[in-house]
Every structure is written in C-alpha cells, then in structure tokens.
C-alpha cells in the first residue's frame, strides 16, 4: 500500500498541475517560449523527471520571466507567472527540506510579483 508516507520519489508530482495548466500559455504570452514546446517539456518532466529536474525547469522559467520583465512583456502574464512559480517554492517544503537556492528563488519571485504590475 502506498499512502501519504510512502509515495516516495513520485511525491513531487503533486506540484505539477498548476504549472502544466498555466505556464506554457503564460510563457507564450511573454514571448518566452512556444506553448506546444513548453507543454511537451513539462509532460516529459512528469513522465521522466525528478524533483531536481523539475526545479531546474522552474529556475529556467524564472530566468525567462526576468527577461520578459526587463523587456516590458505583458505585465499581467508576468505577474501571474511569478505567482505560479512562487507557489511551487511555498509548497515544496512539505516534501523535502528547503534548499539554499529555494530562499533566493522565492525572494526573487516575490519581488517579481510586485514589480510586474
């Protein structure tokens, strides 16, 4: 029986739905990635990824968000993307200890939430 304590390596998958649903469209709106390609990347991560590769992808999304914000991309999309990414760092301590990078990413996404208006 696999339950709340035993889902092990798969537990991080609970993070994926909101990102899968929203991020491809938001990156597309910000001219930071083609929707279909992002959908394929995310689905590949869900099938073959790990929690480390998932957060690698999230960092990449944050970097692209920075670029979009710097070049005056759609502010509503930028703010929403920052919020969706930020939520990931708020959720992840429930399944693994906070990593040093997490705090840096969270703080930066917090700033982007406010500056992308």
């Amino acid at each position, binding site marked *: *029986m696999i339950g709340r304590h035993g889902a092990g390596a798969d537990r991080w998958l609970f993070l994926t739905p909101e990102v899968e649903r929203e991020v491809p469209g938001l990156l597309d709106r910000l001219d930071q990635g083609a929707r279909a390609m992002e959908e394929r990347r995310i689905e590949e991560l869900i*099938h073959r990824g790990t929690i480390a590769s998932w957060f690698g992808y999230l960092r990449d999304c944050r970097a692209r968000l920075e670029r979009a914000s710097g070049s005056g991309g759609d502010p509503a999309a930028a703010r929403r993307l920052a919020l969706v990414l930020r939520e990931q760092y708020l959720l992840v301590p429930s399944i693994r200890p906070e990593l040093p990078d997490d705090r840096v990413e969270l703080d930066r996404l917090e700033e982007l939430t406010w500056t992308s208006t």
Partner: protein
Amino acid sequence: MSVTRSQGYTLPATAYTSPEIYEREMREVFMRSWNFVCHVSDVAEPGRYWTTSIAGEPVVVIRDDDGTLRALSNVCRHRASLIVRGEGACPKVLRCPYHGWTYRKDGQLAAVPEARGFPDLDREAVRLPSFRVGELCGLVFVCMSDETDPLDTYFGDLPQRLAPLRLPELTVGRRGNASYDHNWKVLADNYLEGYHIPVGHPGLLRLLDYKRYIATLGKRHAWIDGPFRDKPSKNRQERLYQRLMRPMHGFPEELEGAWTYVHLWPCTFIDIYPDLIDTWQLQPDGLRRTRTEYRLYHSGSRSVRDRLVRNINFRVNAKVMDEDVELCDDVQRGLESRTYERGVLNDNENAVRNFHDLLREAVPGIDDRAS
C-alpha cells in the same frame, strides 16, 4: 472561512456524523431512488435470484417463470427470517429456511407447513411486499417508492451514453466486496473529485492527463473524463498497460483514449476502461460503516494479452483504491473533530458540489447544523 459563489461549501460535518441524518438519508434518499442491484445476466433465466440490501431492507430480485423481473422483500411474513441469501436459482418457489413457509416467485404465499395450526391465516392475503424493478443498459435497478420518476428518465440522457458500451453482452468477471469504516458519503465524495489525484495518486497523474480531467454534470449523474497522456509512463506496470491495452471489441471509439468514471445517484459508480468495465456499489451499513461491492465486465476474450492487460488494470486500480481508503480513513476521523464545521470546494470539485446539492434537495435541513 468565506468563499465566492462559484465555489461553495461542503455539507457540514454533522451530515456525516449525525445518526438522525443517517436515518433520514435511508428514508429520503435510498428508499426513494433507483438503486443498482446486479447485471442482467445474473437474473437471466426463470428462477434466478439475486439478493441485496437497500436502506437496510433485505430485497430479492428474481426472474419469474414468464420472464418478468420482480423485486420482493426478502423477509418471511411468518417470523421475519431472511428467505434466501446471496444469489442462486430456485426451481419453483422460494422457501423460508426457518419454518418452511413457501412463496411463489410473484411473492404470493403458496404453502405453509402444518397449516392447520394457523386457523385464521388467510393465505391469499399474505404476500411479500414488492418493489419497482427495471433494467437500464444491462444493469438491474430497484426502487422502493412509487413516487419516484421512472427508471428510463431518472438519469436523464445517461442511457444514451451507456448504450454503446453494450453492457448486456459483456461477460461478468471478477467480483468482490469489502467493508470500510467510513460514512458512505466520504467514499462517494472521494470518488467524485480529481483534485486529490496529484497528491494522493501520483502514479495516476503520469497515466492520465490531469489538466483534461473534467467532470460533466447530468441529471442525477456525473460523467468524469480522464484522458490518457500520450507519452509512455515511467512506471513499468503502467507502461506495459499502455503498450498492450487494446479496447474491447465494439468499444466506443470516442472513449478509447480515456478512463471514464460515472456516478449514478445516490451511490453507484461505473468505471469505464477500454479493456474492461466495472461497477462499484456502496451500501451504507450504519452511520460510519459502508459495504462495497465491485464487479468487472469484459469482452470474454481469453487471449493471454487481454487477460494480462485486465490483470494489470486491476492491480493499478487496486493500488489507487488502497490509497483512497487511507485518505478516507483520515477524512472520516477529521469529520468527527469538534473543531471542523465544513469545508470549501474548488472548481475541480464540481461533482462533489452537485452531489451535496442533490443531498440538500433530498434531505431538507441537512445543512442546518452548520454554524
């Protein structure tokens, strides 16, 4: 807690813990609804019978000699013994195992041992109470109320959606039952929403495309689509299923790419997989106990490949069931907390909201205890 109108509240915890509400549910929900009993093949020939319990009432469904399907009380009018158990065939009459009172298949008392000992007994006036019985797409249903809508319109357009599955022609396969220490609505609520899948069933998230996991609401039913992802799963068992699974002969093309879940009010569930179909019936057995019965139906194919696929499907879903039972254990305990009043529902829980609204309609006042 405040919510927007588009979300809504769950029923209060007292709806799951109050003996009074439970009793009203038995009378006002179960005795007034059409309850699934068995597959039509279970009572195909004259004399074949199938027993069940509806709102705690023992009921036997039996095929009469002229082919008529009947639903009768399974309680002897003499000293209240159950007349038959389980399933089976009776050659001519139903005989009570206690004192041998004997009934015809239409419920009429036929004979009484040592009848002279009952000088005032009017044999013609003694019969087993009968209930409405009907067949819908190969499934047999019983209703204990004369006021309830006819079966063929009770679930709206559901018969049109189920008909292409050709349920009457399928072979009845594996079956089983289990009892859980949960109020029946805890199990029903859990079935009706996919919001818990990412946390509770990460394996299922790899198999099904969660963003397209959508519940469509119909008249007294919910139809939940769980489309497959295109990519092969990382899990060996799931990957094997994806690779080997082929739809049953004649299975509707539009359902081939998904696992589909159907809820029939009040607590019948049909899982439609391309390789097999199952029914899962809840029978409340007390305020916090529910008996469940599942049955599998398939094409009857005995090929090694199809049997293997059905086995994998069964194992994948047995694991999901184990995970659900553990989740429901926690919910049942939480509902009994003095600090919990009621919860809030999100958009992915629309079928739960609809189910709770049906309960509000059927059991007026069920919401009243929420502060």
